């Protein structure tokens, strides 16, 4: 307690640390465990500077995205490239699935896995996409979607809003994935017709 007051840090500093050091994002529209409140605390410019300075001492850096925050490690090499590639390839599969749905899932969307499974069942193209997403052992479409949702909420891109009805909400941190995808440039043989690649990278 003493330390927190002398550094003039907000009293939620520990909560912020314990969420972000776990590798999770803090999104402005998250509601579990007072996430939106934590977001507001970090987003306050005075707090932000203090927290940043404080965490920098232990080599964590707060990264700011579009309505979300996360930690990166200062002066430590980013490792495990192969694993990372694998993971992001999987994200591409998942986002491609989400993008191909009639009722597009975007930030703030609420949905139930059964709804997605239902749509995939009715649409052969979607069904194939879902079945081809690797690394899942589940047999039924519904369980597969469930696993995807589970994975995405563990990575704090989704939030299980209501356990009874199994309803998920897409958090602002989803922007992070979109930004990553947006920053990938596709080299075209026939000149570049669209230059969508931007540097929205943090």
């Amino acid at each position: 307690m003493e330390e927190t007051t002398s550094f003039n840090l907000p009293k939620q500093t520990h909560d912020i640390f314990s969420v972000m050091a776990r590798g999770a994002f803090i999104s402005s529209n998250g509601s579990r465990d007072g996430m939106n409140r934590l977001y507001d605390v970090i987003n306050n410019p005075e707090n932000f500077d203090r927290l940043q300075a404080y965490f920098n001492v232990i080599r964590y850096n707060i990264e700011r995205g579009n309505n979300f925050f996360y930690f990166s490690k200062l002066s430590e090499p980013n490792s495990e490239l192969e694993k990372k590639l694998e993971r992001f390839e999987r994200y591409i599969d998942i986002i491609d699935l989400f993008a191909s749905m009639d009722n597009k899932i975007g930030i703030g969307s609420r949905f139930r896995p059964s709804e997605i499974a239902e749509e995939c069942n009715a649409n052969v193209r979607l069904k194939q996409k879902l079945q081809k997403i690797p690394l899942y052992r589940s047999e039924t479409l519904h369980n597969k979607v469930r696993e995807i949702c589970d994975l995405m909420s563990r990575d704090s891109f989704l939030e299980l809003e209501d356990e009874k009805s199994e309803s998920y909400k897409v958090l602002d941190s989803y922007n992070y994935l979109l930004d990553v995808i947006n920053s990938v440039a596709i080299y075209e043989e026939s000149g570049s017709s669209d230059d969508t690649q931007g540097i929205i990278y943090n």
Partner: protein
Amino acid sequence: MSLQVNVKDLLSNLYHNRGVVELLFGQRDHITVNELLGRDDISEEQYRKLVSLDILYEYENVVSLNDAVVAMFEDFMEIGEVTPGFINDYINELKRHIKFYQEAREMRFLRSIKKYLKRINSTLTREIIKLQKNVDDTYKNESNYRIKLQKLEDYREKRDTIIDFIRQTTTIVDETRSLFNITNDSELFGIVSSLKVSLIENLDFLIEIQTDITDFINKIQYQLDVYKKAQRLKEVKDHGTLHFKTNFREIVSGINTLKHNGHKTPKTKIPIDFLYSDDGHVLCKRIAEKYKITRLMVRGLADKMAGNFKDQGLVQQIKLDTEKLVERFLTQTKLNLFEYLIEYKFPKAIGTVTFEERLSLFVEIAMEYQNQLDFKYRLQYHDYIEANTELKKRLGYTLILPLKEKAKKEKAAK
């Protein structure tokens, strides 16, 4: 229509059924008649009365509040749908009364002018606040993409309408300045000047809202664009050329999130000292239960006893008794734990139990059986004479009563 015209009657009816009104306002369109009557705060008769008074409506077994009542609450709370149409009505009324006043300089017209100027002022502000709230809410919570875009476009239109009204009001106020000057009415002057200030403020606010709406629409558009990109990436990936035809590798290697780089949460060891504390003991116990280490559980208990009791032999006998002792204590209601232990007649086999031993028994029971005891967090005092020094002493102890359920039952009985 039998809706009360009397303000007092209406208010008292609403007040008497405030629980129901609050519930129905909070959960519009969800409450069925049976659900409502299942609650304690309204009887069938009262319900019929409210329906006959038109405060409640019943349609296909769903109960709803009178729209006028809902609208009133919404107005006060500045929530609900944006309805700029009202402003238009007020502006027209204002124009009409100004015309009247120009023809006949009568106070009654001036009064109406004031009324409508005030109304325009407050309604504009309210509508703009509602607009802001709704735009934000739509962006954050509307799940369907197309509807979301459509809604935001609608709000953009409403915003334009409101701006138009602001312009109209400004022109009216400017045009009638000379007329208002003639009236020499200080109240009117105050109303007009505050209206002017708030018109400028509101215009600024609307511009801000406009940037918000544009921003939100752009974000959605961005998402749609990225989705297209994702689909193309997926295509490239399916052709097996993701690593060659794009800079995917490069981008991913630059990713700096903790999770994706395998940076683990720093793990700390539990300090040994903590394990000796009360919280530490609870933690140990939980772990012992989880892994079914009975040895650890037993030792946890025994350790505590050893600290409390002088005579080891006596300890074990008393320990065997503790549970029954507590059971007996829980079944009675007359005494609190401390008194009970001090008064308790132990079996002769144990021999005499000294005051100190009873005291440590008190502490032990308080700690071991805390879940079954009702801690009052109030001190009571006990006077006694210390055996060795024969000094009069006073001891403060926490008031501990049997089990909460009992207390509840007792209360219910009363």
